[in-house]
């Protein structure tokens, strides 16, 4: 249900974007000062930063490789050698947690860049600047995505897609110079980026479009236009810098939803593929009733980190929304 709430958050932003006033559009300082005042929000930010850096430096920090097996020592509880115990294959849980954070980081980052930033900005710009039919078509497609049940649909679409992706990656291995494409598991990441991006561009596109619509009427844009500046130049020199901060904050508030979606997709077996580490896989491996009874650490370890991460994402999202909505 967490994941629901995040997507709700996300959607909530959708309905409220129109309320963001352009007056604060470029005022980074105002936002930042307000954010600093949110104690819980700042704590969450620090938690996220700490966990993300742990993910980035996982290869350095992790005492073991996430694939390293030691069958003699499987299913052990926490000990000095294995701080958080080991899983069924005797892999170090602590190292797997670090690498799972890394997976979360990669997925959130990639989806935000590809979906919200590139796709969202581009479509928002086109819609806002061109107007007319182009605008209608893009925004209506956005409405389609906004009104669909995101996560269940992602699971279904990914399930239909993944065998095909699989076959394509085997084809790439045997027919091109790339050899370990299948083994690298890159294909499953690409599927996730693609699927999540489909649903994540809408809010940023709507924001950009609405800002452009109101900016167009602004004095300085009018002035720029009257001295004969080109459209492109107006967009990139004046419009984008004006709204980039707003966009970053808006996007950050949807981090939790993206991270949660990856975990759920993997849990369903349509996300990141083994042996890659993911919280979805760890939770799945530990979630049997009898497994939990006998080896509770298999579930409790990933559960703690996921809950902490979701907690931080939720509160940060709330704080950012508050900051943005204040006007």
């Amino acid at each position, binding site marked *: 249900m967490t994941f629901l709430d995040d997507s709700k958050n996300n959607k909530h932003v959708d309905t409220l974007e129109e309320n963001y006033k352009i007056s604060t559009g470029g005022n980074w300082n105002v936002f930042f000062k307000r954010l600093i005042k949110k104690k819980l929000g700042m704590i969450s930010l620090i938690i996220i930063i700490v966990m993300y850096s742990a993910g980035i430096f996982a290869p350095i920090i992790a005492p073991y490789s996430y694939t390293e097996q030691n*069958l003699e020592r499987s299913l052990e509880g926490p000990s000095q050698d294995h701080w958080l115990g080991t899983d069924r294959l005797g892999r170090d849980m602590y190292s797997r947690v670090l690498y799972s954070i890394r997976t979360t980081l990669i997925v959130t980052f990639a989806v935000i860049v590809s979906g919200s930033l590139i796709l969202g900005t581009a479509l928002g710009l086109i819609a806002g600047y061109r107007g007319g039919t182009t605008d209608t078509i893009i925004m209506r497609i956005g409405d389609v995505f906004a009104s669909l049940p995101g996560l269940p649909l992602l699971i279904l679409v990914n399930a239909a897609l993944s065998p095909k992706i699989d076959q394509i990656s*085997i084809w790439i291995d045997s027919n091109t110079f790339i050899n370990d494409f299948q083994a690298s598991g890159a294909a499953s990441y690409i599927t996730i980026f693609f699927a999540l991006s489909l649903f994540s561009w809408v809010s940023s596109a709507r924001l950009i479009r609405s800002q452009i619509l109101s900016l167009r009427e602004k004095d300085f844009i009018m002035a720029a236009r009257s001295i004969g500046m080109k459209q492109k130049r107006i967009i990139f020199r004046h419009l984008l810098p004006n709204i980039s901060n707003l966009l970053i904050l808006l996007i950050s508030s949807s981090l939790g939803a993206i991270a949660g979606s990856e975990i759920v997709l993997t849990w369903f077996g349509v996300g990141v593929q083994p042996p890659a580490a993911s919280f979805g896989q760890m939770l799945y491996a530990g979630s049997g009733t*009898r497994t939990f009874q*006998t080896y509770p650490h298999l579930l409790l370890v990933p559960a703690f980190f996921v809950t902490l991460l979701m907690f931080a994402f939720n509160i940060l999202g709330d704080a950012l929304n508050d900051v943005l909505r204040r006007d």
Partner: protein
Amino acid sequence: MNSKKFFALLLTILTVLVGIVFGLTLLLRITNQQPVENIQNIGSEPASILKLAGSEPNTLDPHLMGDANSAQYASEIYGGLVTITPALEINLDLAESLDISEDGLVYRFKLRENIFFHSGRKVTADDIKWSFERAASPELNSNTSLTYLADIIGFKEKRFGLASSISGITVIDKSTIEITIDSPKAYFLAKLSYPTAFVLDYQQIEANPRNWTRKPNGTGPYKIKEWRLSEKIILESNSSYHLGVPNIQMVEYQLSGGSVLTRFENGEVDVAYISTSDIDRVLDPNEKLNKLYKQSTSFTTSYIGLNINQAPFDDVNVRKAFASAIDIKKVTDLTFKGMTPQATGILPPGMFGYDSSIKTYSFNPEKAREYLSRSKYGSAENLPTIVFSDIGAGAEGSTDIQAYVEQWKTNLGVNVNIRQTDAASFFADLDLKKMQMYSIGWILDYPDPENILDLKFHSQSAENNENYSNFEVDDLLEKARIETDSLKRVEYYQEAERMIVRDVPWIPTYFSVTHYVVSDRLKNWLEPSIIIPRLRFASLQEK
């Protein structure tokens, strides 16, 4: 905002919403389901109910089924000419007597007088012929019928639509039927115990071709009283069963629900299987469960198949290297906690023809590397990309396969990629012999070595998924088919098995042992090595 107005609106909307959903579902329920008998009164009956955890059968059409779960239900509901007893002997079921001709080609069955369908209609020889022809009909498009019944003359022709009836089956009179097969095969009778040869009621099927499996009319010891999709299947004993009326009147399979062992401990089911998570606790003599714990072997061999037509497994030395580089014993002991014994050959122990002196390649990393260097590829770097296919779509791959892949990496320096696929495309690829290596198991259908050695390793067999071809092995298997002296037959099979093990088309991994607990009140519960009707032997003892 006017709060009263709002409230009224909110209430109306909610009521309408709830009303629509309830109304729609009710409507669907009324239109979709036949009226169900009120089963409340079952509880008030004196006879007690055996409660088992089960899973939904894929189908209850015995001519279509190919999975063990469905076959378990079918074996209780239907019957054929012959059946297999708990002692794994072939016994007559619908037939009263059997005459086999001198040349071993013609089987003449005389039917019993007291055989009836659950509906009460008497079973005749025509019913049996009709059932065989249904199993062979191209319209039914059964996946399994050719494997089990193609020995009957004319069966293949009918299956491929070249003939309108099976020429090898003749109805002599109302209670006599004759089946002619293509060559004298000692195991043919055993094949008739498989669900593809079960007898069905043509009246029911013709009257209701789409939905008859929901309450099928068979000849078995139990009949379906109720099947609530995904909830439960209730079987009721057939009070006129010709081989003896079952002791337990009512059997309930619970199709939904969580952990079976927990339900067992809460008294919700009578039998539960033990998983690796619980085995330590069950084996502890201080635990209550320990006294109820039992185990039995099942005739199943799990293996890693190596496709001989695909590089790099076209080289026997690569196959030997892969077989010697994995420590199966360690995996069974540590990952499976010793619950599944390591497979040492192809035939499981206890099987007719099992020979303990046949040994697969043992774990030896040095030898493995030597084999690899002796192969035409020379070293790990020269091997092409290797993909290991495994059924599964879960978030986590099979534990043992992940362990083997790691061992190949450390002991041979070979990178093996795991590809998880769904069962449907796995079996399609298996048939097309497209996969390089894969893990799967073979559950024996009847206790004869032919069911595994001939079926899986004869170069002409459709089930030979590894493209294994060895003339000497083929020769031995063909000799064994028609050998009437059973001692000699066994020798042929053992010789063949020894050669197959040496050529490594399979890396046999595990034999199977069933670990289970049975409640105090359930007596004579059977966990046989193959699937046979077993419910009628059990009994319930009330305190």
